[in-house]
């Protein structure tokens, strides 16, 4: 079956299902319940964006859902706003609340965010109850109008179902597109490893707030459906903390990170109470026990269970068959282009640089309380060279790399990269100015594929924004193809071709190091910082790494290297800087350093009291 027919298959099935469902389910009670399930599912889709994609726990989804419902209800009943315009008002007001809540809290992670969102939910409920002039207090808002098409009112549950179903389908389609886009990958990079996301070029604060706002906006649309369908009545107690928890459970039960899972979870748990009616008062207890059991026994939810079944594996292979083939063609093409050029033509001396200074560091210092980890270091890295930064353990090497890459703010000193002052700038800005790094303890986006890891490396050289990503516009497709070509080239370069679709975590240690290198190179850095790239590698792998370093250098990338393997350092470095106790004690060529008495003392510790 060709791609065109495949791409029409899903829409065709959906149209048939949506058109036929009200024919088979005629009871308006059940149709109302289905509409409610759709409203919940949309809120869950939103929660899935912030929790599943971005890894931030929000416990205010019901509050955003309520903000959407109330916004549209107030505007349509009091100001006579058309009901259809209410959707946009619900989306944007909820999203705005998301931004306002996100700005103070998203700088922090996990627990703080979760608790701050609970607080937000409580404040929203207090406002709904107390600001009677606006919300009519605990009595709620009644007689909320239905949407109209021409002179036809979409009032009965069967016709409102079409509105709900179309919203759900469009929003799901958006959420799925988002996942495989530049923005979605930035979200997932934050989830997998926030620090590495920053040094790979992702503005983590910006994307977290974006995810939060989008998630709130989705909830707002869900709230719109709730207000204008069903009983046409809303009151504050619907939008409680307990409801937020229920939305969370729906999302997690369905399968955190899976858009379809959110819908399954949302629908299942809306209909389940009907089945569990006989439990009466103990219903919430059964529900709560269910949450704990799901966490223990089904960590990846229903989506996780289903996607591991043999039938779905086969189905996925069939579905992806064409796109995988296309990718492989692209991969071989890029490798052919490559092999002619740099690979064989290197000699170590090719690397000696132009002499122009790329990175200047002056008086750099970092103090942690009383500890002077780095204390007034000057150094310069020349373009085209491989420079090494060595020193005994605790001499401040990694601290310097962390300041260079923006993870630490220096206590004092200047850093300039190609003329731009970068000291104290955010990691993603430094990355976009042309510096990339790897980490001593590898920091990959473990749950993502090898290819996705490298694609994120191209983040700062691509521009697709939220709406281009969701709508999958032609410009986004072209950019995506370019990113892929570059990523495949990088994988080929480090020798990971053929592993594109493996999960990054599943690679053996040595290959994980190579993948981190490929990800760093994908951002086209002028300066590459490598923090102990040979740590944990065996002799053969180290030798391959040396070859790779020379090749990277030949491509015009300057390297600053922290390494304990002295053979490697002496072998590759044009210039070596030696640190001890946060101060520079020597610099020069490999020969000079080998003979320097102070360096020998530092490593062998002849001075009394230095050990």
């Amino acid at each position, binding site marked *: 079956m060709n791609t065109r027919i495949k791409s029409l298959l899903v829409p065709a099935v959906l149209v048939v299902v949506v058109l036929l469902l009200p024919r088979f389910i005629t009871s308006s009670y059940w149709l109302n319940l289905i509409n409610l399930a759709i409203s919940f599912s949309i809120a869950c889709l939103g929660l899935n964006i912030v*929790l599943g994609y971005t*890894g931030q*726990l929000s416990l205010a989804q019901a509050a955003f859902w309520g903000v959407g419902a109330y916004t549209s209800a107030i505007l349509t009943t009091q100001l006579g706003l058309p009901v259809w315009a209410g959707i946009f008002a619900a989306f944007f007001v909820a999203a705005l609340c998301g931004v306002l809540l996100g700005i*103070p*809290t998203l*700088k*922090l992670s*996990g*627990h*703080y965010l*979760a*608790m*701050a969102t*609970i*607080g*937000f939910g*409580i*404040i929203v409920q*207090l406002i709904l*109850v*107390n600001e009677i002039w606006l919300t009519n207090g605990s009595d709620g808002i009644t007689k909320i109008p239905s949407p109209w098409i021409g002179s036809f009112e979409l009032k009965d549950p069967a016709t409102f179902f079409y509105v709900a179903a179309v919203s759900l389908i469009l929003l799901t389609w958006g959420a799925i597109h988002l996942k495989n886009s530049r923005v979605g990958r930035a979200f997932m990079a934050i989830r997998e490893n926030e*620090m590495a996301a920053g040094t790979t070029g992702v503005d983590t604060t910006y994307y977290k707030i974006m995810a939060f706002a989008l998630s709130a906006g989705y909830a707002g649309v869900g709230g719109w459906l709730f207000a204008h369908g069903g009983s046409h009545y809303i009151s504050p107690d619907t939008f409680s*903390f*307990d409801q937020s*928890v229920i939305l*969370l*459970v729906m999302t*997690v039960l369905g399968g955190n990170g899976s858009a379809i899972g959110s819908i399954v979870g949302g629908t299942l748990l809306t209909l389940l109470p009907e089945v569990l009616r006989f439990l009466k*008062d*103990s219903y*919430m*207890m059964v*529900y*709560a*026990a*269910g*949450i*704990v059991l799901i*966490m*223990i026994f089904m*960590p990846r939810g229903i989506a996780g269970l289903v996607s591991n079944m043999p039938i779905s594996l086969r189905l996925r292979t069939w579905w992806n068959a064409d796109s995988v083939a296309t990718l492989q063609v692209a991969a071989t093409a890029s490798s052919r282009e490559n092999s002619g050029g740099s690979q064989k033509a290197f000699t170590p001396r090719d690397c000696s640089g132009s002499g122009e200074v790329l990175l200047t560091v002056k008086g750099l210092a970092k103090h942690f309380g009383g500890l002077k980890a780095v204390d007034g270091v000057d150094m310069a890295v020349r373009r085209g060279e491989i420079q090494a930064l060595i020193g005994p353990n605790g001499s401040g090497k*990694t601290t310097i*790399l*962390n300041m260079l890459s923006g*993870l*630490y703010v220096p206590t004092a000193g200047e850093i300039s990269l190609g003329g731009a002052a970068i000291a104290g700038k955010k990691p993603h800005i430094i990355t976009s100015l042309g510096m990339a790094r790897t*980490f*001593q303890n590898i920091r990959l986006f473990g749950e993502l594929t090898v290819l996705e890891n490298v694609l994120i490396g191209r983040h700062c050289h691509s521009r697709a924004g939220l709406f281009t990503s969701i709508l999958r516009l032609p410009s986004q497709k072209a950019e995506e193809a370019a990113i892929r070509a570059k990523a495949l080239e990088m994988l080929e370069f480090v020798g990971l071709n053929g592993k594109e679709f493996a999960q990054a975590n599943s690679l053996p240690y040595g290959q994980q190091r190579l993948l981190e290198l490929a990800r760093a190179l994908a951002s086209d850095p002028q300066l590459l910082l490598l*923090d102990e790239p040979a740590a944990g590698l065996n002799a053969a792998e180290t030798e391959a790494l040396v070859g790779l370093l020379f090749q990277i250098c030949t491509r015009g990338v300057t390297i600053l290297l922290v390494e304990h393997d002295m053979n490697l350092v002496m072998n590759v470095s044009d210039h070596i800087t030696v640190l001890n106790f946060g101060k520079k004690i020597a610099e020069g060529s490999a020969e000079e350093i080998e003979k320097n008495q102070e360096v020998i003392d530092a490593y062998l510790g002849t001075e009394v009291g230095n050990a």
Partner: protein
Amino acid sequence: MDWSTNLQMVVAGLAMGSIYALVALGFVLIFNAVNVVNFAQGEFAMVPAFVAVWLMSYLNLSFAMTCVITVVFMGIFGIVFERIAYYPLRNRSFLPVIISTIGVGIFLKNGAQLIFGAEPLSMPRPTSPEALNFFGVFVDPQYIVIILCTLALLGFQYFFFEKTMLGKKMLATAQDKQMARLLGIRVATMIAVTFVYSSILGAAAGILVGPIFFVTKDMGAMIGVKAFCSSIVGGFGSIPGAILGGLFLGVIEVFAAYYVSSAYRDAFAFIILILVLLLRPQGIFGEKIAEKA
């Protein structure tokens, strides 16, 4: 505004703040031990309040007897809680554990409603309902009891962590589990003990606060979230921070409810929380800790 009203409010604020501080300590001790925020911490105060009401009102036990039984009950409760909500998920990331503690919290709330009914219960007062008159400042004696009991507990806790081997082992476990294990400390046991201790703190909070509020299934939720706010305001992970943050929030809340708006009384804790997060994320007494690269 006259000074005696203000002083009365200070005492009331310190009393409520003591409750927040006790529950906040429970949060912090568990967080330090297992790096997870226990979202059912408020229920650690709700459950003993119900147990105490039941013992006193239905079994007609004396106050002292009730305290002993409730503390023992909560000790066992702490172990059971740890085995269900934390232990099976100990090797996973914080998210599943948080969700699981939320689940247990909802279970407890609805369990309490199922057993004791939805009507608010009132706990018999161990102190006289007559306000004491200190030179024109009228103070509910229960407030004094709350503040004194909290001080006594804090004193005991200081002694426990500074002077006893068990306390030292718990601190060592919180600092570095692997090293503690290498030194022969039974880390799993220490974690269980931490949960027990934390839930006993909850027992104290529940018994102390019971007489001034009605005992309801929802009483724990608000105490829990405010206690958490306290621990962040004070500096998360810091024991003195949790205590001072609790007292601070308790007092601020009473004053804000009186002078600003009583309808939004429950919102002030969060407004302060958000202000602190914006201006001084490490908390008033905390130190900034950066993740290691």
